[in-house]
């Protein structure tokens, strides 16, 4: 006699008809890579990496303000002539801006859809809420921190890119806008900036190793190294970005 084991029935009745638990609807989800949770995380990791690369260059560029107005303004102008004369004026920069904007939109899209999915998966809270068992703090600030970064970004573009809300206005040179932007009378702007930079640091403290994990490139042997990498890069970013307002405050940049 041959026993036939039917795959699917091996574990007895699963939500048999009439069973009250069968009423809970399995959420209907569209399939495909971008709707899968690891797929969304991969999108987040790649777009996050694009933004991190940008931030590193951005920070290095900002530090040029310590070299004086001429150097800094020349650097700002050179960004616009990047790729010339092969490419027309401002072509490469515009392309890079589009890539960055796309990365930001996709990153936020993945973050928001995953957060909504998480909310639906955990509709009931525990009566006793204990602090993290894993001892992580950075991870629990990802969503709030990310939102804070986004809000700052809007202000930041209005302030130093378009000059709309900057005392030096859109017609000032980049250096003027920078110095005016961090003027002591606008201490609350500087405070906002400092908080946003700290939020970026915290975001990357978790995000940098998390990205490797999401792309399946982490393992038992690499966690220590990845963590050290994440801490080092985040600290460098925070220090590098805070150096400029500190320089303005101290009168080194004026």
């Amino acid at each position, binding site marked *: 006699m041959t026993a036939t084991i039917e*795959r*699917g029935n*091996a*574990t007895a009745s*699963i*939500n048999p008809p009439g069973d*009250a*638990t069968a*009423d*809970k609807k*399995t*959420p209907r*989800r569209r*399939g495909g*890579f971008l*709707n*899968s*949770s*690891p*797929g*969304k*995380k*991969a999108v987040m990791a790649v777009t996050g990496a694009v933004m991190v690369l940008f931030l590193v260059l951005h920070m290095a560029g900002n530090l040029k303000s310590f070299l004086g107005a001429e150097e800094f303004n020349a650097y700002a102008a050179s960004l616009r002539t990047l790729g010339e004369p092969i490419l027309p004026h401002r072509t490469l920069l515009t392309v890079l801006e589009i890539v960055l904007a796309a990365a930001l939109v996709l990153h936020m899209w993945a973050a928001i859809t*995953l957060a909504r*999915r*998480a909310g*639906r*998966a*955990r*509709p*009931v*809270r*525990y*009566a*006793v*809420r*204990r602090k*993290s*068992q*894993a*001892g*992580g703090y950075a*991870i*629990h600030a*990802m969503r709030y921190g990310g939102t804070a970064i986004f809000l700052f970004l809007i202000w930041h573009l209005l302030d130093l890119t378009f000059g709309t809300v900057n005392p030096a206005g859109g017609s000032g040179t980049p250096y003027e806008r920078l110095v005016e932007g961090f003027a002591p009378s606008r201490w609350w702007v500087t405070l906002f900036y400092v908080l946003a930079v700290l939020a970026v640091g915290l975001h990357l403290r*978790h995000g940098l*190793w*998390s990205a*490797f*994990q*999401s*792309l*399946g*490139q*982490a*393992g*038992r042997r690499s*966690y220590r190294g990845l963590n050290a990498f994440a801490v080092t890069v985040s600290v460098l970013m925070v220090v590098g970005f805070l150096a400029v307002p500190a320089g303005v405050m101290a009168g080194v940049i004026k």
Partner: protein
Amino acid sequence: MNLTLKIWRQKDPQDRGRMVTYRVEDVSPDMSFLEMLDVLNERLILEGDEPVAFDHDCREGICGMCGMVINGVAHGEQVATTTCQLHMRHFEDNAVITIEPWRAAPFPVVKDLVVDRSSFDRIIQAGGFISVPAGSAPDAHSVPVKKEDADNAFDAATCIACGACVAACPNGSASLFTAAKITHLSLLPQGQPERESRAKAMVEQMDAEGFGGCTNTGECTAVCPKGIPLDTIARMNRDYLRASK
């Protein structure tokens, strides 16, 4: 020992449920947590009340049936320990202990502390197996396996499907469980032919059941009674991404 218990009581899946406070006296510190609940239940039965329903089977930490959130921590604060292996000596006399069921939409409460974990079964059914001709078992040494791989596969295979990882995850993600099952098979030669299709099918089922995505919080490993490590999730991601190319 005397204890105050605050326990989630819920008649059936439709009931809204509430916390009910009980006093349990003369508990021996040598009792397991479940034995302590047995004491309470015996009294409730004698008094004509409905006993507190909870899942359990082996009571030796290997079946994965028992599971409850004790003072906000899945399986209680003792690390690498199932609820049935947790002993009352870890609690103080006159302690107040809050006991809740696993909370996740794909784990609906059946009654009191019992949840329906058949969503896990369906994830296994989607791909947590190897398709081999059922003949006599091959010689153990006919296919060599690296010691490290054998060890890691075995570590992953110790997952008892208790669901604590889901209960502890702020995203309600079943990634640690699914990844443990994927890792266990994908590290061994027998698991190679279906490695990618398995990862894809199991991840898709996990998503379809309504579990959340992983954000690498690590809350799961911290409460896992078997200490399943986070690198299993990296492996799941890798296999899934490869399958999606």
